[in-house]
């Protein structure tokens, strides 16, 4: 019996592992192609091991296009995703505390409104938003991508609310008896305790902003302002593309921040999705 269970166990692991490799094969193929010489990429598609290992694609690709290198695109992406993430996490935490702990008039109404916005298609908002930002002369600036983030994001507010609800109410109450006000309780008691939720929210926010394509497509029309995702799209323009190796190399680089976050903080991401049922 034990022997049979052990064999079943081994079969399970082998099958799960092989299927897993098939699942991530496109990614592996992309990485391996980025290290192949251009002439080899399409003739040796069947093998993951480059016949002649080269980093030339990375050097060529990094030069970018139109005299703008990928250094600029990465800098832009880090600015937008970095500032946006800070703004969204701080504002979401403040709002979450209000919803989770303070009884006030009209709370249920606003909370319901917020939950409905989670299901709202972005299409009904982008046209007036575009007109608004256009009127403000914000086209070709990072403002349309960053400023709205400072008003909290329903997803993260909800995530943090759920987390705060798990904290014992006695903490707030005893602080109140000691004479602390709401702001004091939030700052001294709640904020230090919700760090895990803030980390999860930061990771998701950074990852989604980094990946965002439509926002930069609408608001950034100058190559010097392009984020990585928009730059990559133009870099890989099917009508002019000649250097596939460079495209693969820059594609891999563009995924690196997200992959690194995933490798180091996997637990925060997968548990965040499982507990809040976040999008995908």
């Amino acid at each position, binding site marked *: 019996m034990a022997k049979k269970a052990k064999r079943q166990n081994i079969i399970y692991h082998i099958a799960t592992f092989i299927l897993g490799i098939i699942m991530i094969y*496109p990614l592996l193929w992309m990485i391996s192609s980025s290290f192949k010489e251009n002439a080899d990429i399409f003739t040796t598609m069947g093998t993951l091991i480059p016949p002649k290992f080269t980093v030339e694609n990375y050097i060529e690709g990094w030069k970018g296009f139109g005299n703008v290198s990928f250094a600029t695109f990465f800098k832009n992406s880090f600015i937008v995703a970095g500032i946006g993430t800070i703004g969204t996490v701080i504002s979401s935490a403040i709002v979450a505390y209000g919803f989770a702990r303070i009884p006030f008039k009209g709370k249920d109404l606003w909370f319901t409104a917020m939950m409905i916005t989670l299901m709202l298609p972005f299409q009904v908002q982008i046209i007036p938003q575009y007109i608004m930002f256009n009127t403000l002369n914000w086209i070709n600036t990072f403002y349309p991508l960053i400023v709205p983030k400072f*008003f909290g994001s329903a997803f993260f507010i909800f995530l943090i609310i759920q987390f705060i609800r798990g904290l014992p109410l006695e903490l707030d109450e005893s602080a109140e008896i000691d004479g602390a006000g709401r702001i004091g309780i939030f700052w001294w008691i709640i904020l230090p305790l919700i760090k895990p939720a803030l980390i999860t929210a930061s990771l998701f926010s950074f990852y989604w902003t980094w990946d965002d394509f439509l926002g930069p497509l609408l608001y950034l029309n100058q190559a010097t302002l392009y984020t990585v995702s928009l730059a990559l799209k133009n870099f890989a323009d099917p009508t002019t593309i000649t250097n596939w190796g460079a495209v693969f190399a820059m594609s891999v680089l563009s995924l690196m921040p997200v992959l690194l976050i995933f490798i180091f903080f996997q637990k925060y991401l997968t548990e965040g999705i499982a507990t809040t049922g976040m999008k995908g």
Partner: protein
Amino acid sequence: MNKRERYNNVMGYLFISPWLIGFFIFTLFPIIASFILAFTRYDVLSPPRWIGIDNWFRLLEDTRYHNSLKATFYYVFTAVPLRLIFALLVAMLLKPSTRLAGLYRGIYYLPSLIGGSVAVAVVWRQVFGSEGLINFILGMMGIKGLNWLGNPSTAIWTLIILAVWQFGSPMLIFLAGLKQIPDSLYEAASIDGAKGWDQFIKITLPMLSPVILFNLIMQIINGFMVFTQAYIITSGGPLDTTLFYSLYLYQKAFQSFEMGYASAMAWVLLMIIAFFTALAFKSSRFWVYYESEEGK
């Protein structure tokens, strides 16, 4: 109203004020504005002109719009069920808590993590290109490949496969749901002689049905909003077979600057999504099992 209540009201609104202000500026006002715009002709350069319900009539006659509806429905109603089935199968596979469970979860989630990126879209175009990876593999097996992206009957499937490949998030949610099902139910069923398939139909599916409902609604909403992949991989072609709703709306609003017409489209989309969300909720009482009802 006593002092404490007043204090809480002030503080409550103070704390939620960032969201509340943002809600009015970036959500509520745009929604109302786009509804009004839907009755105008507006090209950004000159002021909007009231044209009544012309835009809405135009939707009825616009064949490209009908193509985009067809493509979107086809996509949503194949990609969403396939993705959910796949997500559930993988969740079942990954349910046993072995020492490698964390690693497996990571590997199987990876496609979702990167699948929405421009990088993968660009690579996907290559994978399914005439001289791409798929045709290369078929060629090794002696099968002549197709021009997947140029063929009106296969192009949409390259996007559906990409969508199904990103099964990670619903899979993790299913996995969390599966772990909630008490082992005692399965043990009792085994004693009664119920085998794997019976257990799946009679225990797993009912116990999981609230999670299935949740995933279904979220995936339908997401499915209707898909944009980036179609924009990059097929640009709506060939013959509008992948002209998804968001893509056509984008073209109308931001390429030909028919903002009024595009706003009408946006509102129709809002109603379509509201309809299917409501439908899923309404139908749920026939197929979603809530444990608490048992006690009544």
